[in-house]
């Protein structure tokens, strides 16, 4: 935006807009033309006509001409132009005028050919059908009323959190349906003899018998509490159920007419749910992304948006309205403060800049050190837990048992509790603008939270593939400690998910509600009043549920029923959070904007998905699958199913697939994609330049217009002041 255009007219003379004749001079650009002049201009008139779409040519009358008149006027122009495809609702007229317009349109329809009439009629009925369908689907929307009432009471920022939670519930449900249809259904059909099918079990060939040993632990005496431990950690009686990978030791299901290849189906279900999640998240974030792209330019925040779209017309609650006013005040002041700080930053001397950058480098090293320390702690905890799990776990005391089993989860939760506090302290010294500070802190916390799961999985992976006394060549993995390592990874994910759920419930029950009770009933104590009721912290809550979703994505391969557990968990969390919000939280004076929030949530979710794909691809492609359990006993690695299936295709298809996946195809393809990308980047750059030029042109034209109007006004005045002259 060319702010440097000479003599920004309105800026200096803000509130005195009266035109004093003495101020006028030819070169003066302080002239604001009287508005009625501007209203006579043809450009204004045509825009006004377009807005109300009144059929008459004469704006002043503002009435609709009689049918015959308009018909004869527009016959030359083509009637179809008039009966534009714009639905009648979109006209900015009141209902009686719309009725008249509709009657005119219908009489004019009679003059159309039969084909055109049929086209219009069918398009109208199709639109009506779509609307009815849309109305139906909104009825099916989950928790519509709850989310609406939250929006009315707490604003759109918090409402977007709950919409996000609802999205995750639906996503997990769909993932579970995919896994169910592809993997569970054939097995259930065969097990309960609904269809006449049998399991196909291919015996092992060329394999050392040692690799296929899977000792199921069964101790003599079973204490009662061991059931609880089994439930909480997935061992014991849960280990053989369909909850975990180890249950699916089936090579195929033989139906009457074909054999269903279960290993292939298992792998495809994994790829399918990852691809579906990616596409769905990208689709949802496209709108937010487009808007962020458009408004990037120089301002990263739009004042127009804050002023014209600042008031949320949904608000009906008086206290909420007061809160909105104060949050708008806060926001505008903060933005202007941010501007001032950015000015200050731009005016830094080079000495100061160097000092700040070295300080930032040092502080970033501290951040990295903190992260490394946490990761190392998690590594140690996981290693310890894995080692001691194997030793005589039945002989341990109840609490010690559980502690060892849950040690990694506990360390992760502690780390995730402490590090945000450290990061918040550190960023204070880094001297960024306030908006950037918030974003950087959140980014660091996100990374910390999601990377901890990866560290856990990598620790497990390293334990699985490392053998103390070189017994790995036998089966490719440490089969003494991990005869069925996928099940054990699945158990770790299951434990993480259960622990996460317990923590969320515990925090709500034992921290939020007591805090509210204390604040309400101990009004005397000043300390408690200072602490105050809590506010609903959106970033922390969002990180919590993204963390849960990442666990689900990683774990769904090793534990097919995990998405169903995740769905249930999120449903319960929705209600718990809703209750906590309604009864214990006060609305925050600093409100998130819905548009920003949506984009942020989906970005964090996308990061979680990418971090989930990494361990999965490594375990599928690199680590040999267990030979003692699971559908992939006859393959080296999980991924080997695909090449084997391809080799059963007809040879022409095989050569095609080999050609497409070879380097001879990939490299030219990559180069072409790069060229196409450079073309679009160049095109966008050229368009941007054209836009800047047109903007300058526009402001120059406007100056010319004002100049001409000014001359005209002067001339009129002269004429008027000489009434008697000939």
């Amino acid at each position, binding site marked *: *935006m060319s*702010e440097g*255009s000479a003599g920004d*007219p*309105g800026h200096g003379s*803000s*509130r005195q*807009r009266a035109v004093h004749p003495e101020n006028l001079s030819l070169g003066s650009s302080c002239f*604001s033309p009287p*508005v009625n002049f*501007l*209203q006579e201009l043809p450009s*204004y008139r045509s*825009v*006004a006509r377009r*807005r109300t779409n009144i059929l008459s040519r004469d704006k002043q009358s503002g009435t609709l001409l009689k049918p015959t008149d308009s018909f004869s006027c527009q016959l030359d122009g083509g009637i179809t132009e008039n009966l534009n495809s714009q639905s*009648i*609702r*979109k006209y*900015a007229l*009141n*209902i009686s005028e*719309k*009725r008249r317009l509709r009657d005119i349109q219908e009489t004019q329809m009679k003059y159309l050919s039969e084909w055109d009439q049929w086209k219009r009629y069918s398009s109208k009925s199709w639109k009506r059908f779509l609307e009815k369908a*849309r*109305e139906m689907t909104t009825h099916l929307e989950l928790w519509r009323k709850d989310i*609406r009432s939250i929006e009315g009471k707490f604003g*759109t920022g918090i409402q977007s959190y709950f919409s996000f939670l609802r999205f995750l519930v639906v996503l997990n449900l769909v993932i579970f349906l995919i896994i169910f249809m592809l993997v569970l259904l054939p097995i259930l059909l065969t097990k309960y003899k609904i269809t006449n099918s049998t399991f196909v079990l291919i015996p092992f060939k060329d394999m050392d018998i040692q690799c296929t040993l899977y000792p199921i632990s069964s101790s003599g005496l079973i204490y009662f509490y061991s059931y609880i431990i089994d439930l909480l950690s997935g061992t014991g009686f849960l280990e053989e159920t369909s909850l975990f990978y180890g249950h699916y030791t089936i090579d195929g299901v033989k139906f009457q007419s074909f054999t269903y290849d279960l290993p292939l189906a298992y792998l495809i279900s994994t790829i399918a749910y990852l691809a579906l999640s990616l596409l769905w998240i990208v689709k949802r974030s496209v709108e*937010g992304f487009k*808007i962020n792209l458009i*408004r990037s330019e120089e301002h990263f925040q*739009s*004042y*127009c*948006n804050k*002023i*014209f*779209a*600042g*008031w949320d*017309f*949904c*608000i*009906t609650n*008086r206290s909420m*309205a007061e809160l909105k*006013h104060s949050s*708008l*005040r806060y926001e*505008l*002041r903060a933005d*202007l403060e941010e*501007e001032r700080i950015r000015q200050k930053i731009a005016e830094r001397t080079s000495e100061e800049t160097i000092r700040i950058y070295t300080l930032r480098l040092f502080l970033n090293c501290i951040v990295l050190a903190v992260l490394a320390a946490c990761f190392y702690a998690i590594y140690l905890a996981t290693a310890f837990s894995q080692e001691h799990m194997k030793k005589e776990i039945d002989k341990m005391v109840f609490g010690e048992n559980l502690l060892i089993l849950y040690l990694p989860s506990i360390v992760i939760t502690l780390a995730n509790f402490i590090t945000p506090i450290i990061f918040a302290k550190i960023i204070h010294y880094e001297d960024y603008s306030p908006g950037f500070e918030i974003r950087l802190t959140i980014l660091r916390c996100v990374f910390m939270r999601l990377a901890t799961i990866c560290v856990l999985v990598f620790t497990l992976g390293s334990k699985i593939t490392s053998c103390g006394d070189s017994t790995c060549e036998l089966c490719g993995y440490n089969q003494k400690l991990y005869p069925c390592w996928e099940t054990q990874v699945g158990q770790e994910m299951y434990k993480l998910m259960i622990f996460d759920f317990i923590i969320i419930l515990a925090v709500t029950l034992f921290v939020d509600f007591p805090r509210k009770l204390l604040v309400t009933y101990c009004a005397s104590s000043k300390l408690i009043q200072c602490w105050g009721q809590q506010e609903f912290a959106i970033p922390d809550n969002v990180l919590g549920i993204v963390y849960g979703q990442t666990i689900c994505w990683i774990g769904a391969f090793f534990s097919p029923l995990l998405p169903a557990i995740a769905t249930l968990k999120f449903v319960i969390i929705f209600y718990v959070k809703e209750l906590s919000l309604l009864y214990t939280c006060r609305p925050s004076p600093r409100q998130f904007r*819905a*548009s920003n929030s949506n984009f942020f949530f989906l970005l964090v979710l996308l990061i979680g998905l990418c971090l989930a794909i990494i361990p999965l691809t490594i375990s599928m492609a690199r680590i040999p699958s267990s030979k003692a359990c699971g559908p992939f006993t006859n393959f080296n690695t999980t991924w080997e199913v695909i090449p084997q299936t391809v080799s059963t295709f007809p040879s022409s298809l095989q050569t095609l697939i080999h050609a497409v996946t070879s380097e001879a195809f990939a490299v030219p393809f990559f180069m072409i994609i790069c060229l196409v990308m450079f073309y679009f980047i160049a095109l966008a750059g050229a368009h941007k330049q054209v836009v800047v030029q047109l903007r300058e042109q*526009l*402001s120059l034209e*406007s*100056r010319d217009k*004002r100049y001409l109007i000014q001359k005209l006004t002067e001339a009129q005045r002269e004429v008027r002041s000489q009434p008697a002259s000939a």
Partner: protein
Amino acid sequence: MGQCLRYQMQWEDLEEYQALTFLTRNEILCIHDTFLKLCPSGKHYKEATLTMDQVSSLPALRVNPFRDRICRVFSHDNVFSFEDVLGMASVFSEQACPSLKIEYAFRIYDFNENGFIDEEDLEEIVLRLLKSDDASEDLLMDVMHHVLSESDLDNDSMLSFSEFEHAMAKSPDFMNSFRIHFWGC
């Protein structure tokens, strides 16, 4: 404040209103109920009118800082007929198209009704949004300057309708915030 004669809305009328507005069937019936509760007794709902005060004090508009402008834009001769209320609800409904909302937003924000949003209008808008009588001059000037520098393309310190339309098309929150969905049900 008695009630209108309790005429059920005819089915054809309901269909017609559905075709001419963006409201769903439930919303139209809901507004019909609310209207009947407020309008003076003894009149058919199609002939009864509500005053601007009555509409201003609807719960949907009660706390809105722009309620007087909304009432002024959507009323005819300073009263609201049933169809006026429906028209207003249609513009504010969730299903309304952006061009319609932008059109009426422009009319609402044009306080002095001269066809442009000039600095007077902007000042009034900001004051109403902040709702504080002691808003500092600096804050006001800064905000107005920023708004104009973002959206005033031809540098005449006013926003014409095209400029406003352009600015709102780029604004991510406009469609979400220019919505009312609680008419008293």
